[in-house]
């Protein structure tokens, strides 16, 4: 049931990204281009998503179990450290360079966009390299 529900959620999430215009990198660049002709659309995507999310997470916080069973996996990390800030800055640079963040890039792979395939492979390489680095550090 968890896998079936995850598939449905991924599907709806992806359709939302397409409706929102997030799978068009030129639209993301248009939002990030504050000094040029600025397209504020992305602010409305965030606003709409957060409006629904705010209600859902407010409700989720008072539950101990998920509706399909199992625990609520709410994040427990609290510290604002160098990893969080540095990692997010590096992500933002990559986001600004191509106009893709992970979700829309994966959906664009489903559209058959060869440029998205290359981006996602490079992203997986980055994630994989990070994992290897972390694992070797833990062994030391």
């Amino acid at each position, binding site marked *: 049931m*968890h*896998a079936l*529900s*995850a*598939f449905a959620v*991924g*599907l*709806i999430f*992806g359709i*939302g990204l397409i*409706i*929102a*215009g997030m*799978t068009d*990198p*030129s639209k993301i*660049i*248009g939002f*990030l281009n*504050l*000094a040029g*002709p600025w397209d504020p659309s992305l602010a409305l*995507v*965030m606003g*709409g*998503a957060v*409006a*629904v*999310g705010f209600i859902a*997470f407010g409700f989720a916080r008072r539950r101990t*179990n*998920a509706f399909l069973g*199992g625990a609520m*996996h*709410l*994040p427990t990390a609290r510290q604002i450290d160098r*990893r969080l*800030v540095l*990692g*997010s*800055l590096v*992500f*933002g*640079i*990559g986001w*600004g360079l191509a106009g893709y*963040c*992970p*979700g829309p890039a*994966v959906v664009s*792979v489903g559209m058959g*966009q060869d440029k*998205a395939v290359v981006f996602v492979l490079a*992203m*997986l*390489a*980055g*994630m994989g*390299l*990070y994992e290897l680095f972390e694992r070797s550090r833990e062994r030391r």
Partner: protein
Amino acid sequence: MIDWGHFTPWSSLAGGLVIGAAAAMFILLNGRIAGISGIIGGLLRPSGGGISWRLAFVGGLLFAPAAYALLTELPVPTIDAGFPLLVLAGFLVGVGTSYGSGCTSGHGVCGISRLSPRSLVATAAFMLAGFATVFVLRHLLS
């Protein structure tokens, strides 16, 4: 100056509501945060666990364009970046989201919805870096 020609308030707001609904379903039904980089990253980690639901979620994302195309024509994207830049961008997004524990969905949508101070800081950081990068690319280098 606002680019009224490209501004799509209604479709972007509607898409945002659908994204929010998906994130709401995931936390309430599965008890999970709909953070794309975290879901994918967990597949690369032996200790990540939950291989089946992670793959199912990614499968849903990949299948979304086909489902969308049943209802209406898919939008055609404009991708200015060439292949070398896409490789660099993808690599930075992979490393950055792993190191910073999240992306636009996990920190941006879910984190801000939870009013998490960590996610507010992360979102401010990647937004600022995105604005700065596009400024350098579009105004200083071209």
